[in-house]
């Protein structure tokens, strides 16, 4: 313990004349430093919270605000934050309308992103539920090694994987297809989801499964009827996690889909939109809102579930 620090606190106290005068009436004078620090930290705490809130929320507010302003107005007065003068949803119309109608066709991109994300969730869950159950429950040769192998995958940069996958998918003609991308996403996320689900399966009491086994249920029936319903919270959290990653992903979408506009995701469409000069920044912001909104809504609706699922096991340090 910091004995010296405590001593300093005591030594400083008598220098304050009023404290000396009141000494008899104060039973625990060393508390004064405690009180001072607590007060200052109490104020600093709220200032810090305010700072973080502004830093994290402002960019999103700014995104929405610019998306409903006219670009000429922004150029005239870039510092205006409120009220959004001449607010109009025109930019959203332009972004969402199909290309034939003079828009950017984001509705198609939304559909693509949604399909990719949902398919990635389905494939990842299917593979990782079975795998994590095996790792959590069953004794088999190489169990520990498998765990280690999965985590070591995370050492390698995505760009390193991107090169051979790019070559491979080009050769077999899957580059540009949504299916190829789903396969890539699932395989990259599976090591993490296995880890998340395994932690949860281990907390499900084994006696329930044994009871089912005694009643003659097969292994797959046990997983389906007993383990899965019990692990539902973790499975939900994992699904959300996968959905968000697949929806937000950019590098592989860029490498695989860029030549095939019909299959673009929202992220890719937006990044390509930014490249063309004639697209106004406000239109770009409308596209950003469209890209962000589903994720933010999903996140706020399920925040608690997601956070608990993600950090399960982290408490152990």
């Amino acid at each position: 313990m910091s004995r010296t620090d405590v001593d300093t606190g005591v030594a400083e106290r008598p220098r304050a004349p009023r404290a000396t005068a009141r000494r008899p009436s104060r039973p625990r004078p060393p508390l004064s430093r405690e009180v001072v620090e607590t007060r200052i930290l109490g104020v600093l705490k709220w200032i810090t919270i305010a700072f973080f809130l502004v830093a994290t929320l402002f960019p999103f507010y700014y995104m929405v605000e610019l998306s409903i302003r006219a670009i000429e107005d922004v150029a005239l007065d870039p510092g205006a934050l409120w009220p959004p003068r001449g607010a109009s949803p025109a930019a959203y119309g332009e972004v969402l309308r199909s290309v034939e109608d003079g828009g950017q066709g984001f509705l198609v991109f939304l559909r693509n992103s949604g399909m990719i994300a949902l398919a990635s969730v389905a494939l990842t869950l299917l593979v990782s539920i079975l795998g994590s159950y095996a790792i959590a429950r069953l004794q088999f040769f190489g169990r520990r090694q498998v765990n280690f192998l999965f985590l070591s995958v995370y050492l390698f940069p995505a760009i390193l994987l991107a090169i051979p996958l790019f070559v491979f998918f080009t050769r077999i003609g899957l580059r540009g297809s949504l299916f190829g991308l789903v396969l890539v996403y699932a395989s990259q996320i599976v090591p993490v989801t296995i880890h998340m689900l395994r932690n949860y399966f281990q907390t499900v009491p084994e006696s329930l499964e044994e009871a089912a086994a005694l009643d003659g249920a097969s292994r797959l029936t046990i997983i389906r009827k007993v383990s899965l319903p019990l692990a539902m919270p973790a499975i939900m959290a994992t699904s959300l996690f996968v959905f968000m990653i697949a929806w937000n992903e950019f590098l592989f979408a860029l490498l695989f889909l860029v030549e095939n506009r019909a299959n673009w995701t929202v992220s890719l469409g937006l990044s390509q939109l930014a490249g063309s000069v004639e697209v106004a920044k406000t239109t770009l912001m409308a596209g950003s809102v469209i890209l962000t909104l589903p994720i933010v809504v999903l996140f706020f609706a399920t925040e608690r579930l997601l956070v608990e699922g993600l950090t399960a096991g982290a408490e152990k340090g």
Partner: protein
Amino acid sequence: MPEGPAPRRRGRTLAQQESRAGLALLSPTLIVVLFMVVLPILWTIVIAFQSLRLRNLRTRLFDFQFTLDNFTTVLTSPGFLEALKVTLIYSVVGTALSIGLGLLAALVVRKPFRGRTLVRASMLLPYVAPVVAVTFVWQIMLNPELGIVNAIGADLLGWKEPIPFLEQRTGTISVFGLDLEVPTALIVVTLYQAWRYFPFSFLFILARLQALPGELDEAARVDGATPLQRFWRITLPQLQGVIALLTVLRFIWTFNEFDDIYLLTQGGAGTEVVSVRVYNYLTGRGDIGAAAALSLVLALLLVALLFLYFRFFVGREEADAR
């Protein structure tokens, strides 16, 4: 990791059954990871020694005449060392900042208050939101003509001319009459990285904080330790484990980072990190061999750095603890 209970292994056949079931259930995972992750990594090593280009992909893919040319090309190319330096600065400073901010954020929302759930969710937003959207907002906020930052700078801080934050390689700031050269764009992308990724550290540090037993803190309080002393001497040492883990994870991910920098600056204005160079070799020049060689160099470097970290840094900490 708790092992399965012993009673299950009653008979040898049962154990065998279980072993078989385990491998069967795991096989889809193994197949996916083997074909989509392990084999590609091994293949990258092969490609790195082939002279493979996008235009001769059809004819040269199975041409196994190995050469070191790719490595010579990427290691001696102009700008390689500069990219390495930028990557290191970006990773070290970005990791430190994002963990520091995460710790600070976790400390201030540690105790319950009204609206805490909402505050916590808001603090996670930068990490949850799509990278393309948040990089674009930053670009526009920092835009010299339209951006809010330059507008505020001109109105309130009296900036004479707008600062092109993401296009300026070096800027000059005057501190007490001294003109200092600063790498503007690199500073901005590093700050962006801290902003976007502090929620990750925040989440894990907060989870750990809330699981800490209260007795130690309470005992120190009774003994007269002030809040700051309790933080430095009681709380922080207990967070050491999670912070060390975050340091490794964040460093790995920042070191390999591609999306954020590519979207913010395309690697321009002195922000070209190695992974952006890999991408440029791959798509810009269509030089698949060189791209593979450079990405291997990147991975090896990371392994070497991690080795040093565990060998010297973690080793010393454990020695101190003894």
